[in-house]
């Protein structure tokens, strides 16, 4: 092998190697060019993204700085990472001063009796959770304030919670206003209680006043009866007998006055017996009215406290008791009373509440008839059970009737069409009916067409099956 041949082969290999290197270089250059293009494109995208991010950041910063709430970003260990300017107004420290502090540095210490509820900022133990809490904070100048905090976990793009973000609102003024509201409410409750007591007093006066009318009538009747008593005739007969005491047999047998005396005494006795019966009857009525007054007082007191004792009683008896209290008045006013007892149910109720309502129905009917001056004043009392298994006690009159517009207001406290009325009877009746699980209804076809007031109560157990209230 000659040296020339060797050199030729080496040169040939070098040429081939150079061509291969050039090919590879060109290939790499092309790849680099393409990579460069991609990098440029990527750089353009990055630049646009950076611009957008800067814009977003500026927008976000504008939003956070214009918020009415203080904003804090707090690391898991409680260290403040970010605070907006509003925090300065809230707590006195500038955002720069707040960075690096912990939330505990701002909270009133628990040792001073304030709730230290800052631990939610340090969620290593409990994990991040959304929390709304009130914090007692220390302002830089030393005064305290109450801030409401809405805190929520702040997650990064990988879903890991990196911090808590909290919005703080100064609610010190609201807290003071709430305390004032509580105080005013207490006063309102007290005023309401006093008003209730006044209402009870009004009710007592109204109902007692009504019964006192009957008491007054009864006492007048008793007084008149006593004034017109035949007792004086008896006294005169006794005086005559004493005058002839010495010759009493002769006087009784021969004297014309003496001979008439036995018949006279018989007549006087008969009169006195009749008088006694009338007085007894009136006294019974008086006693019943007095008992009713007693129950009215007790019942009205029960409005202010608790309900009276319930008892099972025939509905008919309740109606009769109410009618009894009006018997004298009905006779005086020449009112015909018609009873339609179509059923004989029992009720589990407070007797006096029901009687009071029925007494009011009857009294209103009497007044309506008195105003109407109809030739045949009539009150019809109805007792029936309804398809809904309620007991209906109704009082219907053919009196002056009720205008339609008044039908909806008639149970309101203070509403009355009577010159001397108080607007309390039906109102308290409606309340009592509701208390017993029942209701009061009214119906009238208009002025001059009479009216019907009805009390509906659950049959048997009153309070266990409440009815819908009127209206």
């Amino acid at each position, binding site marked *: *092998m000659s040296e020339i041949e*060797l050199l030729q*082969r*080496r040169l*040939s*290999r*070098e*040429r*081939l*190697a*150079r061509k*291969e*290197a050039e090919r*590879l*270089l060109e290939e*790499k250059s092309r790849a680099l060019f393409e990579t460069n293009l991609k990098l440029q494109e990527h750089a353009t995208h990055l630049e646009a993204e950076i611009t957008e991010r800067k814009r977003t950041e500026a927008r976000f910063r504008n939003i956070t700085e214009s918020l009415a709430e203080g904003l804090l970003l707090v690391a898991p260990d409680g260290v403040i990472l970010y605070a907006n300017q509003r925090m300065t107004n809230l707590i006195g420290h500038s955002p720069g001063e707040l960075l690096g502090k912990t939330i505990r540095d701002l909270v009133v210490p628990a040792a001073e009796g304030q709730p230290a509820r800052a631990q939610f900022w340090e969620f290593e133990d409990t994990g991040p959770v959304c929390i709304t809490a009130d914090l007692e904070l220390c302002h830089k100048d030393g005064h305290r304030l109450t801030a409401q905090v809405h805190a929520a976990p702040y997650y990064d793009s990988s879903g890991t919670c990196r911090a808590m973000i909290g919005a703080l609102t100064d609610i010190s003024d609201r807290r003071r206003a709430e305390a004032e509201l509580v105080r005013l409410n207490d006063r309102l409750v007290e005023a309401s209680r006093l008003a209730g007591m006044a209402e009870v007093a009004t009710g007592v006066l109204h109902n007692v006043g009504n019964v006192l009318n009957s008491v007054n009538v009864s006492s007048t009747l008793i007084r008149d009866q006593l004034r017109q008593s035949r007792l004086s005739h008896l006294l005169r007969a006794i005086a005559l007998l004493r005058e002839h005491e010495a010759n009493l047999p002769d006087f009784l047998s021969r004297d014309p006055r003496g001979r008439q005396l036995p018949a006279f005494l018989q007549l006087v006795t008969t009169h006195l017996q009749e008088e006694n019966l009338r007085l007894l009857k009136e006294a019974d009525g008086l006693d019943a009215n007095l008992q009713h007054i007693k129950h009215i007082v007790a019942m009205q007191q029960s409005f202010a406290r608790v309900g009276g004792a319930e008892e099972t009683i025939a509905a008919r008896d309740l109606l009769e008791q109410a009618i009894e209290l009006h018997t004298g008045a009905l006779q005086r006013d020449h009112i015909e009373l018609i009873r339609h007892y179509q059923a004989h149910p029992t009720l589990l109720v407070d007797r006096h509440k029901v009687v009071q309502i029925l007494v009011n129905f009857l009294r209103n009917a009497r007044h309506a008839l008195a105003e109407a001056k109809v030739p045949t004043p009539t009150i019809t009392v109805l007792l029936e059970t309804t398809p809904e298994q309620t007991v209906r006690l109704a009082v219907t009159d053919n009196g002056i009737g009720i205008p339609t517009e008044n039908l909806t207001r008639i149970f309101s406290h203070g509403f009355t069409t009577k010159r001397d009325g108080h607007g309390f009877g039906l109102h308290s009746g409606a309340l009592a009916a509701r208390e017993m699980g029942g209701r009061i209804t009214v119906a009238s076809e208009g002025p001059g067409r009479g009216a019907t007031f009805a009390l509906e109560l659950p049959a048997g157990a009153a309070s266990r099956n409440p009815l819908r209230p009127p209206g």
Partner: protein
Amino acid sequence: MKGIVFTEFLEMVEKTFSPETADQIILASELPHGGAYTAVGTYPHAEMVSLVVHLSEVSATPVPDLLRTFGRHLFSRFVALYPAFFPSGMDTLTFLAGVETHIHAEVLKLYPDAQLPRFDTRRAGEDELVMDYRSDRAMHDLAEGLIHGCIQHFGERVHLRKEVVDGTGGTCARFVLRRERL
């Protein structure tokens, strides 16, 4: 295998033996491209084996000796060509401990298709390093030569022991380096 290994091998043959010897083993290997290697190319590993085997025949030198010699040469070339990888203040064990994570990582950035041996390293003390070599090419002798070249470059006295794992056909070997303090 990267072209630089071929170009540096032939360079070493020409310098250590002669240009004729290099030409001779190229011709004997009957290479498809006639031995026209370029450092930035990539060539079959079998061509390197053929070249080394023929050099062993021509020079009557065992293949392992040739590979170790080539390893020392190759390391010195790496130092000359890529000085950034050999900063001042570096030492043998630190450099070798970072071969897999540092050097090979950089090579793969440039040549993603490069098939590199794997070195798992463990410091058994401040002055001891264990390197576990794994490669299908079973060229642990070349690796040994490179490690010797490294020791020589940093000028330290480091004792190297190689243990070829039995039954692996030379694809796995352990190098234990123990540095002697001067």
